[in-house]
């Protein structure tokens, strides 16, 4: 998604090296995805559902 849009920043974080981040985002299972610090889910989602989460986070960001 970060390839396709200049608005997207995609980070992969190896949390066993950064326990503080794991604690901050309550990471108990991986992969865990956090979008704009607000929306999160565990495990892999199909593309369409993942996109929905991204759009949700973006809509919250604009206050829509």
């Amino acid at each position, binding site marked *: 998604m970060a390839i396709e849009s200049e608005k*997207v*920043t995609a980070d*992969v974080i190896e949390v066993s*090296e950064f326990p503080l981040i794991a604690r901050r985002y309550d990471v108990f299972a991986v*992969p865990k995805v956090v979008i704009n610090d607000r929306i999160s889910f565990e495990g892999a989602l199909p593309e369409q559902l993942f996109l929905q989460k991204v759009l949700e986070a973006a809509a919250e960001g604009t206050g829509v």
Partner: protein
Amino acid sequence: MPLLREQDRRQLEEIFAAQLTDPVTLVLFTQHDSPLLIPAQECQTCRETRELLEEVAALSDKIRLEVKDFVRDAAEARQLGVHIIPATIFRGKNKGTLRYFGIPSGYEFSVLVQGIIDVSTGTTRLSAQTREQLAKLSVPVHIQVMVTPT
């Protein structure tokens, strides 16, 4: 001793030769090896990450590795949102920002390889519909994927 096995090295060389189209720069923020050991500030995987990226970059003339020092290049690190190390930033034909924090080893090594290929080609396997929606984004979206190497 190299981190990559000879067999993997050869296979990767073939993959890169076949799939990389445009140049890629990997910007690695790391720390200098210091004779002084400060336990709280020690970056446990920095040295290995650097070795791994050097080995990967050597497999294709389209991959360039730029090594930055987290302390000396602090202003640049801040500007790029790098607050933990090792941090690898992928630069190529990507429109947005792509970063990897930690060592991309084990199962995550494929993330490094795929990331290099994706920013080189500037294309993804996302559907046309998804790409259309992403192109319409008007606010920043920060996606963080938490992983472990095993």
